[in-house]
């Protein structure tokens, strides 16, 4: 038996030595910092929650006058007329149609741009093109709106003489061009995050650049690419200026892009700019429309989240 074993077996009187005791000052300081950080994080959540609360509150008074059934089935939206109808369908159809046209433009062009930038462009080209593409994001949307109305629509009218001056096609196409940089930039980031070893594996099998890009890199980056699409959809659904300027203000139920129609956002702008008395039914209708808009965006975001979860990166 040596001394070490003896010490092991001896009973010990446990105390807290001052050198090991809790440092109160440091703990308080940490708590305060933690609290400030939490406040900052909460501010965003609180803002969102209060927006939802106000939307719900004002919509609630709206739905006291208008039944939910009318709201979702009536095919007329004329809240400011003598013979008022409150069917959201025309606005929803306008929103979905312009968004669909925009995505039909933005998804192919954005994806192809991303593939080119990530897999084909030389380092030098990418360094020049990507910032330029991102510069496009900075162009004010009202400029795009007038571009659609005064430049693209006249050109389209030469091809389709029937096309009205305000139409969803032109607004949708320009909105698509506007979204391309978002999708291209985000999708390119996702593709560049695919590890080089995976590309090397494909090249080592005798694959070409194009085969590697489409058969290996794109599937590997699919969750990021889908996220880029979802962001594009949210942008399209929520876009206001382009559609307000170029798509027209007539709320009609139509999925034909060659027609003129109002979107939810365009209606909100139109009404919000007018002089509606606070608390009137027209005023409240903005909030109901806003709530629907938020619902649509939320649906797409949830869908995007589910798709991302299903195809998450494995490397």
């Amino acid at each position: 038996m040596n001394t070490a074993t003896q010490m092991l077996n001896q009973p010990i009187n446990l105390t807290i030595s001052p050198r090991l005791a809790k440092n109160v000052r440091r703990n308080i300081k940490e708590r305060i910092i933690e609290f400030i950080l939490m406040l900052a994080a909460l501010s965003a959540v609180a803002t969102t929650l209060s927006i939802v609360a106000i939307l719900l509150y004002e919509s609630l008074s709206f739905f006291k006058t208008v039944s939910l059934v009318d709201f979702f089935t009536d095919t007329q939206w004329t809240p400011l007329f003598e013979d008022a109808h409150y069917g959201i369908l025309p606005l929803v159809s306008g929103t979905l149609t312009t968004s669909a046209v925009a995505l039909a433009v933005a998804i192919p062009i954005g994806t192809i741009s991303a593939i080119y930038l990530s897999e084909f462009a030389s380092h030098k080209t990418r360094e020049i093109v990507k910032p330029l593409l991102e510069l496009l994001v900075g162009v004010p949307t009202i400029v795009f709106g007038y571009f659609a109305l005064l430049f693209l629509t006249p050109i389209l009218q030469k091809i389709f003489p029937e096309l009205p001056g305000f139409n969803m096609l032109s607004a949708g196409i320009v909105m698509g061009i506007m979204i391309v940089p978002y999708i291209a930039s985000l999708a390119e980031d996702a593709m560049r995050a695919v590890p080089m070893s995976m590309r090397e594996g494909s090249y080592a099998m005798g694959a070409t650049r194009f085969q590697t890009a489409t058969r290996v890199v794109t599937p590997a980056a699919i969750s990021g690419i889908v996220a880029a699409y979802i962001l594009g959809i949210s942008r399209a659904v929520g876009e206001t200026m382009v559609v307000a300027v170029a798509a027209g203000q007539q709320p009609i139920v139509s999925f034909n892009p060659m027609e003129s129609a109002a979107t939810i956002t365009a209606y909100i702008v139109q009404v919000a700019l007018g002089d509606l008395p606070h608390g009137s039914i027209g005023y409240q209708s903005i909030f109901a429309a806003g709530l629907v808009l938020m619902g649509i965006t939320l649906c797409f975001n949830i869908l995007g989240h589910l798709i991302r979860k299903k195809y998450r990166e494995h490397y």
Partner: protein
Amino acid sequence: MQNTTSIIKAQSKNLDFFYSNGMQALKSVNMPLYENKITALIGPSGCGKSTFLRCFNRMHDLYPGNKYQGEIVMHPDNTNILEHGVDPIEVRMRISMVFQKPNPFPKSIYENVAYGLRVRGESNKRMLDDKVEEALKGAALWNEVKDRQQDLAFNLSGGQQQRLCIARALATDPEIMLFDEPTSALDPIATANIEELMSELKQKLTILVVTHNMQQAARVSDYTAYMYLGELMEYDDTNTIFTNPTRKETEDYITGKFG
């Protein structure tokens, strides 16, 4: 050397290699690869073994600015595969590669193995089925995955993934197979499986393997090359290198005095 009757499958002649930053990674390397033999490359980190291996399937072409000088002559074509007029894709179709870390594609097990055939334009279902089965059997993976070929390849274990990568490389009937430290990410059992597999594979093809593991080189290879600072220090049959190396540097490295 014991095997004077062996046929040379490929050989490097005065091979220099320069990375895009100007660093010379290989200095006048002269080395044969004998047909149906395993040649191991050993040497400390940064000595140029992987660089040398990756010359054989023109992997360096993927990055701009890299430069080869000298020749890698492939037989029986008697063609310098580093020549400008040689298509790297054609080279890679005949010389396949297995990487250090298993790198399966984000596809099913089946599609991973069929990939090489698909990029060659093969779409005949029966033909693909046969080739995939043959390759999976060749890589000793068939029994484990035959009932779940449509599963995502990422669901396999690390050792299985590496065997899948070998199956993928096998499916196109390559003449030479390059292994770049194929077991460095695997546990001892998976490593033993891969080594056994390599010994079987050499009946059909020629193997060049880079390894950090001296025992591995001694176990699996027929010939061993010791490289240091971009130069081939010594090349001989594996027995000689490990029992009676000519150069002091080789002996120091093998016995662990250096490296």
